[in-house]
């Protein structure tokens, strides 16, 4: 069975007529090669210039479901999904004539096809070698499904954690939000009561001053809308949904975060906004960025507790290829002792909360290829946090479009990268 996985015949390596008088040492090395191939965890294939399979190791059998007898000598297309299979011969011809490498020595993520028709992601590395029988190409294929599954789990857990932090922030704001909702509810009740009373008192059932009556109802409607606005703002923030990046107006995202923070906070401190004009769109998950800004703002207001002249400044700007959202206060600054562990989980110096806010905020920033940094202030200066986000060109409508002409690629890996 030594050569069972090798193609026989003139196109095969090793056992050709020319090597009939092969020395004992060459058969030893063939056996050794056979054993190496069969021990390998990755699927290993060798094809010739006609794309015929010459070597098909044991891992291939498991991965693709075909036996060596079914595959050796046949075109490599059989383990490719239809869309690659149709184009593969063309790629090979293109390479033979132009020598232009699209995959050899580079490696990439492609899809493969099992005997039962299942398509799955694999990582493919291709090498090339000259033999007396012409050029041969060696493919090493690794099943990406376990890694994809693991990535999916990690993404899911991260998304859960980030969501939990939002819910926790909303929980901390709960009492203030209830207060905020009580205001319009009180107004609605009084307006409607006033309207109803004016009807009851109208003589002979003739409504008095219909204009006033209508005005009161309109005011009640306005207050109901105000209550609805508070609820929808809260809901948008805490609702569990998949992370989603899109091109957004960063100023609007920051403003929404400011509104939400102020709703959930009773403070004497002043809020100062300074938004850069004409910023290009930012490609971010708006709710996650909002989450960072809400967290920073709440920390800033917390630092100004019990102060009469407190000011929280939020600004957006463009610095080189980055957006910068800065939040600073005129509080006492951060005690030097807490700065080293500031972004670590569970290192809260606050009385309430889990101490996850800043650690999760930084993780979100870094998942966006940005960062969250702090200037701790002190000596009369308050702390200043800076959220930096890279300026990314707004993606085309068709996200999966690869810039490379070779379609044997899944969308850029950044799209499937760790996201939370």
């Amino acid at each position, binding site marked *: 069975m030594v050569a069972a996985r090798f193609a026989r015949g003139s196109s095969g390596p090793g056992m050709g007529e020319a090597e009939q008088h092969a020395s004992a040492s060459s058969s030893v090395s063939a056996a050794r090669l056979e054993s190496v191939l069969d021990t390998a965890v990755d699927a290993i294939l060798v094809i010739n210039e006609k794309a015929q399979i010459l070597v098909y190791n044991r891992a291939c059998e498991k991965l693709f479901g075909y036996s060596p007898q079914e595959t050796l000598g046949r075109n490599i297309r059989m383990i490719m999904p239809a869309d690659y299979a149709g184009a593969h011969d063309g790629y090979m011809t293109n390479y033979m004539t132009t020598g232009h490498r699209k995959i050899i020595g580079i490696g990439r993520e492609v899809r493969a096809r099992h005997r039962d028709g299942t398509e799955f992601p694999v990582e493919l590395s291709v090498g090339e070698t000259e033999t007396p029988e012409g050029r041969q190409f060696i493919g090493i294929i690794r099943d990406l499904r376990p890694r994809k599954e693991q990535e999916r789990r990690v993404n899911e857990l991260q998304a859960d954690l980030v969501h939990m932090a939002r819910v926790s922030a909303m929980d901390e704001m709960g*009492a203030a939000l*209830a*207060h*905020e909702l*009580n*205001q*319009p*509810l*009180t*107004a*609605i*009740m*009084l*307006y409607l*009561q*006033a309207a109803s*009373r*004016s009807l009851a008192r109208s003589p002979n059932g003739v409504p008095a001053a219909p204009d006033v009556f209508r005005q*009161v109802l309109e*005011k*009640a409607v*306005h*207050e109901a809308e*105000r209550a609805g606005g508070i609820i929808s703002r809260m809901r948008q923030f805490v609702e569990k949904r998949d992370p989603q990046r899109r091109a957004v107006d960063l100023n609007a995202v920051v403003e929404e975060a400011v509104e939400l923070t102020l709703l959930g906070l*009773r403070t*004497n401190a002043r809020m100062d906004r300074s938004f850069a004009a004409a910023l290009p769109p930012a490609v971010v998950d708006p709710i996650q960025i909002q989450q960072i800004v809400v967290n920073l703002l709440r920390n800033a207001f917390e630092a100004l507790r019990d102060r009469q002249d407190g000011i929280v400044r939020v600004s957006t700007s463009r610095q080189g290829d980055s957006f910068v959202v800065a939040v600073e206060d005129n509080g006492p600054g951060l005690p030097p002792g807490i700065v080293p562990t500031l972004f670590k989980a569970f290192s809260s110096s606050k009385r309430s909360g889990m101490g996850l806010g800043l650690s999760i905020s930084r993780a979100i920033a870094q998942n966006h290829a940005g960062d969250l940094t702090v200037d701790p202030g002190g000596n009369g200066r308050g702390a200043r946090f800076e959220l930096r986000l890279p300026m990314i060109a707004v993606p085309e409508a068709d996200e999966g479009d690869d810039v490379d002409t070779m379609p044997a690629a899944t969308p850029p890996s950044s799209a499937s990268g760790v996201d939370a």
Partner: protein
Amino acid sequence: MAVHIVEDDPGVSDSLLMFLQGMGLVAYTYPDAESFFEADPPQPDDTIIVDLLLPGISGAGVIRWLQELKEPPRVIAISAQSQSAIEKQIRGISGVEILRKPLSSELISQIV
């Protein structure tokens, strides 16, 4: 007799005004304690409805000032906060009626 409403939330303030006027009462509104102090002092038979959470001088500050008048008028404190937060704010003040928001109209019409 008049009702003075010291309340910073425009919706609550305006609806209270309409409601009280609908009951045939004379009522005035003030967005904060400062503007209330600038107006003529209330008469002994007036009623003052004051929100505990005001910007600037607090509702408790207004209540203390009113109670130091020679003939203190009636004071009703309103608040949308939790009971514990309310108690913390009116600590040391007695003789104040407290209504929690959302206000029930029956309650207001009974009291006023």
